[in-house]
């Protein structure tokens, strides 16, 4: 069972985010402290399809709780059945990432939440103003905004802050591996335990898929080119991208990230440094067994394919990260590492959230009240 301190405890004793012993708190932007009211408002907005242009898509469409908070597809399918260019990452534990998106173009969950709303191949709204208008037109949200933010005003910032607050709580720490770490040596199989050892040793995973007690999410939050999808005609793309004025303009980055062919540029889209071409953010590995297919373009269908990809030394390309090299793992060793990865799945697919209690809690919290207290 989980031990450790709670991040947020209401006067009613309910828990909103529960961290095991030794795990560092997520970095929360100062202007958006975590409160039950915001979390509840964010939960409602997260599931609300009316935020999209034609009322068919919500955050939960591509980040579906029943599919590991992803969508089981290689790339996301958005409004009017348009395919995007990137695989939907899971929202579980995303609150602990340093940056969001495969290319790290959003520095916070708040900034991330704003982009799919107006992405023409995702939720398809023409502008943030349109989103605000859509929410204003839904009278049932007025109270929610009032309690969460102190007034009934709806702004895109508030929408994003609420959704981000909800997302921050999606961190169950309820996997067999978590129980193993807490001391139950029977919680994962022997194979998985050997796999964990290999993960930190011969398989050379841990250096990029960083795992420590303080930060147990299996990502270093850095960007590496491992050679996935080396079909891109890079310098042609780079030239075309270069002609787009204004490095760092959020719309352009977001556009490029979804333009077929351009999206292969990866981190380059943000930094514009040639060494970052084809580099993508190290994915976390919690619930990885639930979030197939894999890689930024969903091109690897199973964990076996992923292991084979790494075992052979990735895909050669001029920018291949120097840390990638053939691993010479045996079939049994590969199976052990996969068994380990499978032990990282939260119980019930990561849906063990008492949202009824959250609603209750939110109703009882006074407007704008911030309640934080460490667990006894």
């Amino acid at each position, binding site marked *: 069972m989980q031990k450790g301190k709670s991040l947020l405890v209401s006067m009613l004793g309910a828990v909103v985010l529960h961290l095991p012993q030794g795990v560092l708190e997520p970095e929360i932007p100062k202007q958006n402290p975590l409160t039950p009211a915001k979390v509840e408002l964010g939960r409602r907005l997260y599931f609300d399809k009316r935020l999209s242009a034609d009322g068919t898509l919500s955050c939960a469409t591509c980040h579906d709780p029943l599919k590991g908070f992803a969508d089981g597809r290689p790339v996301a399918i958005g409004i009017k059945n348009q395919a995007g260019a990137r695989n939907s990452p899971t929202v579980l534990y995303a609150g602990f990432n340093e940056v969001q998106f495969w290319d790290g173009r959003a520095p916070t969950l708040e900034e991330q939440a704003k982009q799919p709303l107006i992405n023409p191949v995702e939720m398809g709204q023409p502008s943030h103003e349109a989103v605000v208008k859509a929410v204003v037109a839904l009278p049932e949200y007025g109270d929610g905004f009032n309690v969460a933010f102190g007034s009934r005003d709806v702004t895109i910032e508030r929408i994003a802050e609420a959704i981000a607050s909800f997302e921050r709580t999606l961190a169950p720490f309820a996997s067999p591996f978590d129980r193993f770490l807490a001391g139950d040596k029977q919680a994962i199989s022997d194979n998985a335990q050997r796999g964990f050892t290999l993960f*930190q*040793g011969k398989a050379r995973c841990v*250096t990029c898929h*960083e*795992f*420590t007690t303080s930060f147990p999410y299996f990502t270093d939050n850095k960007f590496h080119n491992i050679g996935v999808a080396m079909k891109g005609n890079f310098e042609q793309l780079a030239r075309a991208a270069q002609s787009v004025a204004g490095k760092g303009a959020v719309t352009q980055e977001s556009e490029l990230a979804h333009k077929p062919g351009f999206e292969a540029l990866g981190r380059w889209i943000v930094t514009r440094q040639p060494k970052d071409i084809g580099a993508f953010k190290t994915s976390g590995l919690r619930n990885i067994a639930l979030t197939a297919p894999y890689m930024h373009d969903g091109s690897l269908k199973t964990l076996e394919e992923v292991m084979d990809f790494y075992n052979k030394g990735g895909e050669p390309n001029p920018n291949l990260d120097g840390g990638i090299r053939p691993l010479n793992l045996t079939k049994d060793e590969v199976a052990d590492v996969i068994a380990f990865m499978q032990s990282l799945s939260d119980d019930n697919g990561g849906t063990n959230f008492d949202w009824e209690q959250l609603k209750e809690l939110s109703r009882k919290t006074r407007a704008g009240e911030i309640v934080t207290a460490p667990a006894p």
Partner: protein
Amino acid sequence: MTQWGRSVMIFVTLALGGSLAALAAGGDAPRHQLPAAADGQSKVVGLCDGKTSVTVTGVAPGERMDATKAREVATELMDKYDATLQVAHGGTEHTSRELRVWEAETKRVIDDGYKLFHSPEIGTNGISCDMCHPDASNTHPETYPKFQTQLKKVALLRDMINWCIENPLEGPKLADGDDKMKALEAYILSTRKGVPLDPGKH
């Protein structure tokens, strides 16, 4: 002051007044060759061990010290003597044979470590430690334990040695207690003699 200390004090006091010969049980006693005072004009007082001495600034050679000053000098001599005394466990001095053996053994292990450090046989790809660490530079053994970014955990020097053997050198890591690991550590540490400990320094 101990019984022994008192005896020495008496000895020192007597020595101030006259020659050592007065106390010798007959025959020629060895003379303590006192070093000259650094400032060329102060009194130098020697201890009965024939080695330890103290310069008494402000007192001229041949001048008599009062009781308080004499006690100070005696205490200083004793402190200095304790510091240079090599006492073995059990209360007896180390023999010169022991000291020679220890030095030879330590040197041998360090030399073994030097050879391993420069050997392409630890790994399988012909790379040796001295390629990235000539003269063991850049090993910083004084900074362990620290969070080692390649391992993503807090490591000791030996953990990093094994990581390097497995990764850049593509060789089999050394088992716990392997003499080779001891030798490697001994060599690496020997290159940093005198460097203050700084665990955790990145």
